[in-house]
């Protein structure tokens, strides 16, 4: 499995011991983020706009008013699910680039469940069925790459990329040829009836005195938050999580310990695919009330950035997904306010975050280690340096 064992945690652990946790998990990610934003600012300058103005609009657009907050949370819900999906695979040493495709196919599950039930039952009956269907469809789409990695050693990065494209072709075919009502101009299913509309959280926010207007944030947010907790428990508090981490860090040692990397690879990818699949609930049953072409709109890839920024930890992922939610919502407002800045700016920022928090994660670390070393010089050495036998 050497090929797949290139997931970030393996990288990140190299010299982790040399820095205390608060630098490692808070200061360093912030430094990476700052670098990403600095470069983004330069790009904004490059097209002749004022980056500070842009930041102001971005913040106002995402947090400045109720509807903005609602949208921010709506997007964050998507990213939380896909981020968790990427993170679970990371812990097993797997790089699941296929979140996009898994969410897309998960949407098929949601769509079918909704189409089958929406006319007959209330939403709270459709809801669990749709969650289960999303998870099953998403997991199924992850199964083949997982099996190929585990059994035949096919590089999972490549197979999941291929499966994203295959998913896209499959979904277009299904929507265009089978699911779209005759005469419709758009390849999308009919609009669901009330039985497949998830409750929006407007009422809840109103209790807090916040008017979120038309923002589609809905109860999927709670599903995502619950998923954060469950993933935390899974990874750090269960036997399965222990086995997943063991395989992720050192598959040879895992075999020695009687853990089957084949089984863990498949199980971890199934969980990952299921999490990605559940993401589909949010736009389909919470916003559009129909299954559309390309509804995932890159959320599967944002999950990569979110997982890297959040250091594959649910708390980090929750925070990072809110940050990306802000970028998406604030970015829309920004595009609206400053015509020369298009929404693509957030794709640029996303790329820079992945670059600095992922590929260049070691760029600032030596500096921090040196700085921290200077700072602590003369004090008692940290426990990590205590002499051995």
């Amino acid at each position: 499995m050497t090929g797949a064992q290139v997931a970030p945690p393996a990288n990140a652990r190299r010299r982790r011991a040399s820095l205390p946790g608060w630098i490692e998990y808070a200061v360093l990610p912030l430094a990476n983020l700052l670098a990403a934003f600095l470069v983004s600012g330069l790009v904004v300058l490059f097209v002749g706009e004022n980056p500070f103005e842009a930041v102001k609009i971005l913040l106002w657009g995402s947090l400045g008013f109720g509807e903005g907050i609602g949208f921010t949370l709506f997007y964050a819900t998507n990213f939380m699910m896909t981020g968790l999906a990427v993170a679970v695979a990371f812990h097993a040493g797997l790089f699941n680039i296929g979140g996009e495709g898994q969410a897309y196919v998960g949407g098929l599950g949601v769509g079918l469940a909704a189409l089958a039930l929406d006319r007959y039952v209330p939403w709270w009956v459709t809801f669990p069925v749709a969650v289960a269907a999303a998870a099953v469809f998403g997991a199924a789409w992850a199964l083949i790459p997982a099996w190929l990695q585990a059994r035949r050693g096919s590089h999972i990065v490549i197979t999941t990329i291929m499966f994203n494209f295959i998913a896209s072709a499959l979904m277009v075919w299904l929507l265009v040829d089978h699911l779209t009502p005759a005469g419709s101009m758009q390849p999308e299913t009919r609009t669901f009836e009330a039985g497949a509309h998830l409750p929006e959280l407007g009422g809840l926010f109103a209790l807090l005195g916040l008017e979120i207007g038309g923002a589609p944030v809905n109860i999927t947010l709670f599903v995502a938050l619950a998923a954060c907790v469950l993933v935390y428990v899974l990874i750090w508090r269960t036997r399965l999580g222990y086995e997943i981490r063991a395989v992720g860090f050192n598959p040879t040692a895992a075999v020695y310990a009687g853990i089957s990397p084949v089984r863990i690879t498949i199980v971890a990818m199934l969980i990952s695919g299921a999490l990605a699949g559940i993401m589909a609930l949010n736009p389909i049953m919470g916003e559009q009330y129909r299954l559309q072409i390309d509804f995932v709109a890159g959320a599967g890839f944002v999950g990569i950035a979110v997982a890297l920024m959040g250091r594959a930890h649910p708390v980090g992922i929750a925070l990072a997904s809110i940050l990306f939610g802000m970028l998406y919502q604030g970015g829309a407002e920004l595009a609206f306010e400053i015509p020369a800045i298009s929404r693509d700016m957030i794709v640029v920022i996303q790329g820079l975050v992945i670059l600095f928090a992922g590929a260049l994660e070691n760029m600032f670390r030596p500096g921090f280690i040196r700085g921290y070393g200077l700072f602590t010089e003369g004090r008692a050495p940290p426990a990590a340096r205590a002499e051995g036998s």
Partner: protein
Amino acid sequence: MDFHSVILVLDSSVRLSVPLILAALAGLYSERSGIFDIGLEGKMLAGAFAAGAAGALAGSAIAGLAAGILASVGLALVHAYASITQRGNQIVSGVAINFLAAGLTAFLGYAWFSRGGQTPQLPASGRFQSLTWPGAEVVRDVPVVGPIYAELISGHNILVYLAILAVPFTWWVVYRTRFGLRLRAVGENPAAVDTAGISVVWLRYRAVIICGVFCGIAGSYLSIAQSAGFVRDMTAGKGFIALAALIFAKWRPWPVLGACLLFGLLDAVAIRLQGASLPGIGEVPVQFMQALPYVLTVILLAGFIGRAVPPKAGGIPYVKER
């Protein structure tokens, strides 16, 4: 299908496979040196945009090509810095580059030209025009040989011929030159190269830069040769098809040509096959043809048709001192 249509489909396959050939060869240099590159797509896109923008502004195809190469090499250097100098995760870096390219091309295109991310239509001088070979018109009506010469061989733009020639050139570089020997070696065992007194870093940088050059040409082909301007997301997954072709070809130059022509043929057939039904199979959905290269690659990766073993040191940063 009669003979003439076959020729025409093949002609179209050639046109469609050119960007794949260039990008797959680009990947060959990089991955043979041990640097995985899933950012072919992004570099190609950046190349296409820069070429389209410069071609439109300067009205010169050469200027466009130069800009395309420059932009692509720029991103290649980012990848090189992240994965060679900083020893970062090559996959993550590739993903980042794809995002950067997708975002920047659309963002700049939108800001500069206000056409929904497109660049302006190119004047004739801003494009590579097709070259008619001597005698093409004369022999056109000669049976068999005529159409082959006039349609298939003649009448492409210079980048098409460049791409085809790049295949034997790459073969020669990889197997017949010192650089090629070292390139192959560093992808298998960088420590062996290092102890032989060769700089692993510089060798890999060169490979990645060459990868950038080829991707830049591939992108330029899309925007200033095959069509007359850049369109948002113009590569539409071609970089990944090229990657698939590279794997399919097991990282070897001649098979790369074969795989790319095959994938180009699938595309050409898919374009022409709309609604047409095949005898015995019935109507083949276009989407099926579009997915076929990916499906084939997965099957190959699964080891059901041969086995694709990547360069041994691929994807692993070379770390001398821990």
